């Protein structure tokens, strides 16, 4: 413990980098050094070994289930690998639903009703949207399951996505800026949660739109690429009640 304490120790910057006290520029400088110098990388690794055991004091927290799905979607994993397959993840359901492209929205609603319906179920509200592309073809269909605060987006045959780009879904309330709903896929159905801000604005006066974004989503929080599909939202009412 009697080592001289020198503020100009060359190792300090690496220790400070690992501790996390450097500003963005100083961090970037250390990261450049690590790429150029093996000695710098080794020093940083030594500080990781010294300081990171402290992270053991942080309690584990379970991330939401949907996160794994989001990761798989971003990495474009084959949806057939999914495990464990829940109802909405069951590809056969979606293949079956996709048979009649024009009737997808209705089919989704019926499927939802048949699955969700319970004898004593209170009214369950759904809304649906067909997201059409400029050539008039259906790109995606979306079903909003209001009671469970989620939206299920099923691709039909979307066009216009360049390689390395990903589709992002937006809700555009009348007279307001677009609100990000989440990343969807061109080749697999995706279920996304609807937060309170989205739930409050979903309705016949709002529009859904899909824009082309970098794989992680728009970096700005607003659409940055071309809008390739849009659709109005129709209320599907409380079907569970009316059918049962």
């Amino acid at each position, binding site marked *: 413990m009697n080592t001289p304490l020198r503020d100009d120790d060359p190792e*300090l910057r690496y220790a400070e980098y690992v501790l*996390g006290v450097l500003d963005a520029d100083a961090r970037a400088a250390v990261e450049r050094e690590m790429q150029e110098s093996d000695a710098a990388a080794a020093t940083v690794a030594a500080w990781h070994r*010294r300081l990171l055991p*402290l*992270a*053991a004091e942080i309690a584990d927290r379970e*991330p939401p289930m949907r996160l794994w799905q989001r990761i798989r979607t971003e990495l474009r994993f084959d949806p057939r690998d999914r495990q464990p397959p829940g109802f909405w993840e069951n590809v056969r359901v979606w293949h079956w639903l996709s048979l009649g492209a024009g009737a997808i929205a209705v089919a989704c609603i019926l499927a939802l009703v048949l699955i969700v319906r319970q004898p004593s179920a209170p009214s369950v509200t759904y809304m649906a949207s067909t997201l059409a592309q400029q050539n008039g073809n259906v790109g995606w269909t979306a079903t909003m399951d209001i009671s469970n605060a989620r939206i299920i987006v099923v691709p039909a045959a979307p066009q216009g996505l360049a390689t390395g780009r990903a589709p992002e879904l937006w809700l555009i309330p009348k007279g307001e800026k677009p609100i990000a709903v989440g990343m969807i896929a061109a080749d697999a159905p995706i279920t996304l949660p609807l937060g309170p801000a989205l739930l409050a604005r979903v309705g016949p006066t709002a529009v859904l739109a899909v824009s082309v974004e970098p794989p992680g989503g728009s970096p700005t929080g607003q659409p940055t690429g071309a809008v390739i599909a849009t659709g109005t939202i129709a209320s599907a009412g409380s079907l569970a009640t009316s059918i049962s």
Partner: protein
Amino acid sequence: MTAADGMRHTLEDLLARTADRDRRAFAELYRRTCARLFGVCLRMLREREESEEVLQEVFTTVWQRAASFEPARAGALTWLIALTRNKAIDRLRQRRERVLDDPIDLERLPDERLEPATEVESSQDYARLANCLEQLEARQRRSVREAFFSGATYKQLAERCQVPLPTMKSWIRRGLMQLRSCLES
């Protein structure tokens, strides 16, 4: 390590297989470490949505860069936690306008209980670090700990602790250098 642990693949194996594009290994790695890493994100970012985004970034990076893991330099969990902290700190630096956190009085800040909340890669490493932290002067120890768990810059720490910037730098730098010599003794 218990007998049950012996039956499992180590995280190092799982990372190596992830580098070979083994999706099952990647899924197992996620299952085994996501709660650990999400805890780290939440502790630093203190916002659920941002923490989810960072964790997603972490695992997409793991899939793409698992090959850059060098087992000789650090264990797999250390590598994953380092990656997670780096991404969380980058995110913190991007926050431009931030409501200032409540001021902290380092003289009054109680030391948190020094004990692992979770399975650690090596409880021995943790015990040694905790022991060396104990030997630091209280203000040094508290500022090092606060820095580690918050990911705040020197400037932010000085503001929150209401001390001049050079004072904060000196506490932390001396703390770090003493930790090094203590850990190497």
